[in-house]
């Protein structure tokens, strides 16, 4: 009975906050918020929003950073793939990108702050020898008005993700052979990639690209750390209004969040339009034929994978100053390394750090546990009884939380929860935060487990049945152990996803549940780099360790059963 209900439970769990959240954003945007006395509809919040002097700039900045980061990540990933597919360097690059996918945005952002700011590690390494600086220059690198450092941060995080998704899709395409054929017809690598492979690959990348676009447009944690604040991006501004002690700002915040949804839809339309345009104009490009590359063209081609390498290496390098700063006691400007080291910050922050660790781990464990049960139940139900719900629709619904920008429904979700009185008790807040984490942990658990479950050899089940075993015994004694590599992977990914969540934890926890993500972003505004480094480092290390363990545990558990994991 319960098993049959599981897929519906999953959909309800995902759609209630999403739809309720959208509604809870939209209604206050039109003046309706009974909890605060707004009991009639009006356009006042919108008028207030339009009257805000920074609106044009904030809006433009959101659009620009979101679209630029998405396009750049996509292009850099494709150039890198074009040059590296079927070469040993591809493995090396993906090896480097794996940790970056796992490390939370906030931690990467803090690392970049430490790396690139005027007093950052790169300028320290170059000073005074090359630059001659004795003190940090008065440059605005981090938080520049054009949002370039934010774009860089986003590209560093999203490029590995798109690379990973591309490789997953490529494994189902005859890419290497197509490339060989095209090259034997006289096409260069780049030309062959963009003419012969990418058109086949692109349909598989559309959904991940939408996710990247939605994320980049509404990112808050990274924008708080790397983005400009004169004004900030719209998402950050909405969060500011929303957290204003004057509750009347909620109306303005809701109007802003609704506008952000509109911006997301607009940029989606822009993207799809551009896609059309490229396809329309691309026909001629595809059949251009072969031309002999000029010598400089050849060099240019070879260089085209370099930006991706730079982005990935910057991402990896960003982790080093995190560790160094967390142990620094005295680190004067042009020095490459601290002159004195100490564990003082770790000891001093032990209490706050301990609490953040415990909260983070408890949240991750509960969210991952619940989502594992739900995902396994749904998949087992599907395997035993077939599916009731149509495939295409529900697949998309499951991944909807990944595509809808956080900022456009999380505020409303919180408003809804407040109105229903769910957020009044500590337990209620915890429940809500877990629920909010599930929105992201569940879809990723599905991604990690669905394929493994569907590929599970049905004859193994039949064999066990013909040996006289019932369905539950087969589930516990055959399926679960044999699927353990995928199950542990789902748990590891779930932990990594949960540890990243800043906005859901902050909003639904009412700012009272301090996790590593909340602490890291919260302390980025404060002065002490050493303290910031301590928290950011912990946030970076945790998902990494989780994924490492997830890979290791099934191998240890079944060390003498090679067939399970190979």
């Amino acid at each position, binding site marked *: 009975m319960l098993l049959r209900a599981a897929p519906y439970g999953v959909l309800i769990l995902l759609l209630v906050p999403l739809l309720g959240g959208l509604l809870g954003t939209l209604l206050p945007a039109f003046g309706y918020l009974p909890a605060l006395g707004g009991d009639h509809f009006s356009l006042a919040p919108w008028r207030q929003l339009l009257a805000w002097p920074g609106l044009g700039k904030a809006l433009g900045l959101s659009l620009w950073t979101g679209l630029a980061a998405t396009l750049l990540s996509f292009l850099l990933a494709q150039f890198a793939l074009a040059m590296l597919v079927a070469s040993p360097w591809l493995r090396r690059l993906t090896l480097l990108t794996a940790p970056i996918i796992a490390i939370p945005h906030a931690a990467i952002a803090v690392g970049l702050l430490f790396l690139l700011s005027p007093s950052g590690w790169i300028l320290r390494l170059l000073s005074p020898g090359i630059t001659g600086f004795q003190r940090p220059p008065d440059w605005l690198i981090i938080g520049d008005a054009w949002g370039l450092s934010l774009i860089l941060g986003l590209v560093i995080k999203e490029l590995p993700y798109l690379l990973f998704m591309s490789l997953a899709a490529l494994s189902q395409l005859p890419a290497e052979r197509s490339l060989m054929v095209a090259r034997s017809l006289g096409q260069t690598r780049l030309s062959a990639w963009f003419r012969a492979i990418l058109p086949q690959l692109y349909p598989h990348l559309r959904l991940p690209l939408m996710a990247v676009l939605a994320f980049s447009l509404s990112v808050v944690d990274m924008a708080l750390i790397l983005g400009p604040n004169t004004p900030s991006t719209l998402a950050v501004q909405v969060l500011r209004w929303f957290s204003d002690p004057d509750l009347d700002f909620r109306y303005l915040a809701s109007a802003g969040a609704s506008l952000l949804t509109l911006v997301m839809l607009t940029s989606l339309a822009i993207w799809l339009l551009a896609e059309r345009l490229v396809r329309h104009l691309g026909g001629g490009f595809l059949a251009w034929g072969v031309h002999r590359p000029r010598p400089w063209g050849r060099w240019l081609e070879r260089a085209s994978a370099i930006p991706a390498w730079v982005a990935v290496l910057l991402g990896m390098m960003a982790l080093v100053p995190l560790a160094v700063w967390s142990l620094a006691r005295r680190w004067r400007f042009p020095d490459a390394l601290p002159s004195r080291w100490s564990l003082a910050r770790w000891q001093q922050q032990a209490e706050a750090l301990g609490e953040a660790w415990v909260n983070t781990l408890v949240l991750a464990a509960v969210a991952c546990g619940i989502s594992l049960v739900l995902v396994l139940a749904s998949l087992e139900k599907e395997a035993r009884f077939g599916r009731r719900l149509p495939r295409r629709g529900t697949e998309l619904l499951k991944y909807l939380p990944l595509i809808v920008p956080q900022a456009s429904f999380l505020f409303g979700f919180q408003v809804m929860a407040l109105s229903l009185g769910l957020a009044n008790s500590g337990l209620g807040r915890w429940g809500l935060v877990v629920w909010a984490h599930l929105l992201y942990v569940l879809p990723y658990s599905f991604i990690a487990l669905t394929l493994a479950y569907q590929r599970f050899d049905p004859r193994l089940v039949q064999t066990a049945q013909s040996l006289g075993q019932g369905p539950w015994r087969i589930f516990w004694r055959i399926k679960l152990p044999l699927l353990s590599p995928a199950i542990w992977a789902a748990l590891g990914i779930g932990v990594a996803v949960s540890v990243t969540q800043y906005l859901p934890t902050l909003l639904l926890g009412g700012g009272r549940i301090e996790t590593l993500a909340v602490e890291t972003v919260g302390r980025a505004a404060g002065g002490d780099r050493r303290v910031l480094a301590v928290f950011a480092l912990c946030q970076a290390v945790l998902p990494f360790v989780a994924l490492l363990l997830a890979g290791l545990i099934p191998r240890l558990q079944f060390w003498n*059963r*090679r067939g399970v994991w190979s």
Partner: protein
Amino acid sequence: MNELRVSIERLALGEQTLVEGLEFRVAGGQVLSLMGPSGSGKSSILAFVAGFLDPAFHVSGAVTLNGKDITALPPEERHMSLLFQDPLLFAHMSVGQNLRFGMPRALSRQEKAQRVGDALAAADLGGFDDRDPARLSGGQKARIALLRALLSEPKALLLDEPFSKLDSHLRQSFRAFVRHRAKQANLPLILVTHDQHDAAALGGACLAIGPVQS
């Protein structure tokens, strides 16, 4: 004395009738080979007997074991052991755990160990109890799969192309092994194959399954 009776009035996939008016009985120690080209429905007959027929198929007919109609029983209550062309050993269990998996729970631990030990020894696999199935040869895996089926005390053996993935040398010895064991256990055996040599080597009757003309 075990006896398996199967009668199928009609077995169809969608509009297409695969089998019509088929009846056969196999007594303990006897072999019946179902032969036919792929897509003829011979594997579907086996699935029907074992209780695994995909709901996409429509079938009217009955399976009777020792006079008892078992058509409506779930597969795990039919006591029919099914072997596929792959040995399908459970990778997370040792050889011994695989063998114990289907044994009656009422048996004591010593009893189980005794039977497993005897079965392994008789199959020239003495001392394999703790082995990792992933590290066995193809022939060893095939023999373990058959032993696993036999140790679950089935009332009939159903084999679906069990020899097709073995090389010719192994195939011969495994055929002999199967024939010997099935006879010894006095089980009705149904073999599905497209290879006449398989059928000939196991002896017994042969039924050709062909496309139904309509």
